[in-house]
């Protein structure tokens, strides 16, 4: 009834594009797979090998350092709950995935954001690309990733990196563009090079906004690694997937609750980091 008059085969174009990518860049993809795979394995080892209470203490100590003993106490309670739900190993797999994905996403996003802030043309080109990356349904990323990287942690990681990167770029660009024009001019007026202005003026003054971006990147990464359970990435996602396919309410709830606890922990730590910077303190003192 609503058959298209002309069928534009966007789908098959995408397919052939992925085919072409897979065959042309197979070497590159193999390299990415090795690097990401071993990075994940390594971090996962670090998090799962020691007894759980050691990891709990380290994470609680971090919370204490960035914020307060209250947050440390909350961390202990939350993480012990995860352990007693028998979700500890899964949670650590997920945490490893999130951290690796976040670090790589930021390593790409922050420089791109800086470039976009300094060059209007770059900014104009990047914006629609970011829109696409952020709004394309998360599951859609996974299909070509499985074709390229098969199953396991790596396709989930790559999909997560792409999905989570956008706010990192946006917030970095916004943060740098928001820096008081006059302060940047002051740097220029006293003869500072643009590298020095970036390092000593723009980045420090943009830290708060960039940290808000980091926070967003982590949150998006966490939501995506759970979805990555569909393609066989280890962690809480795989239990969620299992619970979904077997209608197991108990398992689903436990895994879901563990995700929430991790999310709250990561969110509080990164937002506390944002307000800890010297600039943020100076800005708070000024207001």
């Amino acid at each position, binding site marked *: 009834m609503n058959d298209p008059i002309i069928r534009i085969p966007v789908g098959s174009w995408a397919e052939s594009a992925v085919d072409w990518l897979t065959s042309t860049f197979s070497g590159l993809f193999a390299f990415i797979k090795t690097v990401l795979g071993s990075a994940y394995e390594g971090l996962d080892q670090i998090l799962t090998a020691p007894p759980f209470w050691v990891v709990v203490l380290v994470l609680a100590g971090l919370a204490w350092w960035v914020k307060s003993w209250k947050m440390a106490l909350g961390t202990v309670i939350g993480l012990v709950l995860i352990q007693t739900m028998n979700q500890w190993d899964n949670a650590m797999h997920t945490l490893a995935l999130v951290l690796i994905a976040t670090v790589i996403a930021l390593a790409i996003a922050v420089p791109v954001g800086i470039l976009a802030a300094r060059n209007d043309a770059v900014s104009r080109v990047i914006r629609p690309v970011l829109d696409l990356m952020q709004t394309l349904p998360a599951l859609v990323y996974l299909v070509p990733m499985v074709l390229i990287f098969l199953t396991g942690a790596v396709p989930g990681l790559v999909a997560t990196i792409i999905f989570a990167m956008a706010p990192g770029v946006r917030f970095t660009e916004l943060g740098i563009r928001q820096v008081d024009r006059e302060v940047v001019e002051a740097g220029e*007026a006293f003869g500072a090079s643009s590298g020095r202005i970036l390092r000593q003026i723009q980045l420090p003054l943009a830290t708060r906004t960039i940290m808000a971006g980091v926070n967003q990147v982590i949150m998006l990464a966490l939501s995506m690694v759970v979805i990555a359970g569909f393609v066989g990435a280890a962690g809480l996602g795989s239990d969620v997937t299992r619970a979904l396919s077997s209608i197991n309410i108990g398992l689903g709830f436990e895994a879901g609750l563990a995700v929430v606890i991790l999310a709250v922990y990561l969110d509080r730590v990164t937002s506390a980091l944002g307000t800890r910077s010297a600039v943020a303190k100076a800005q708070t003192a*000024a207001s």
Partner: protein
Amino acid sequence: MTENHTEIRADGAYKVFGRRGAEAVRRLRSGSTRDEVKPLGTAAVIDASFEVRKGEIFVVMGLSGSGKSTLIRMLNGLWRPTAGSIHLGDDDLATVSPARLREIRRTKVSMVFQHFALLPHRTVLENAAYPLEIQGVPKEQRRERALEALRLVGLAGWEDSVPGALSGGMRQRVGLARALAADTDVLLMDEAFSALDPLIRREMQEQLLELQSSLGKTIVFITHDLNEAMFLGDRIAMMRDGRIVQIGTAEQILSEPADDYVAQFVADVDRTRVLTASSVMRPSRVVVSISGGPRLALRTMEENAASAAFVTDRNRVFHGTVTDTAVLDAQRRGDADLSAVVEPDTRQVHPDAPMSEIFAPAAESVLPVPVVDDGGRLVGVVPRVRLLEAMSQTTSLDATPSTEDSL
């Protein structure tokens, strides 16, 4: 201080923002107005030509949108002129290489900003030392020179505070110290005191003049406050719609405004503080020579229908006044000259005395106030009616719309 040495010279400098700037400049040169070239770009500065002499305070005065902020940013190359040239020393900022431009900014010209533009995450000392850090001065020397600059502006003891903990006036002192620490000959001040409370502003203006008297920098000062311009400026450039409409001393601008715009602008100024005796005085017609004898003196008074006269000698050195009755007595006695009847006049004022200081002497006698220079010579007189005239220019212009409305 070499008065006539030029530090900055602008020749027909244009700045047009927009993609078709060169075309806009061509049309402006052939007589188009700023509004007519609007589709080609925003003409912020149009055909600016002026010279700033070494050691003077050159004030650029105009309302917002007049192009003064763009103009000052062309003087350190933050904006490059679209056309024309701007020479700072031997360098033409229109053509100089980016590397040389940074070098010039490090060594020749520094800037103070309207909203201070301090680095909030650094202490007062680190802020003041920032230009030296960029110059690559060793740390210990940096500290020393920054401390000295802070002491000059009266901020000794505050070096470890962060800018956020200081008041506006103190923050701008840090801004000034930062520019002084850079130790450049030229200081650009962009509405430097405009964001401060009026009382603090006056204090900062006085401090700047005090510092200037010992440092002798070449200062280009941007302001929209005419009183500030008149107070600080050795010379003032009035800007309107991107063009410089008049350059002159405060007095020249007050007493001979180039056009109606400037005239309206200066209407609000407290003339009594800016106008001096020399700008309101008139040549004295009723002057008699002390050696000329009573008969000659009486004739001069008669011709001018005056009942008194000023007495000078051959070199125009001022001796005092005589009245007609006294001269008549001298004639009856047969005196050869006026030395016996001349009365010293204590009301004499210096040519540089502001009008506000002439009112009191003027009130003491109906005679005009004599203006006497450093050599004791009578250079002119200020009749009482002339004082009222100078004042009334204000009142007559007050009836016209204010300058804000006219834009």
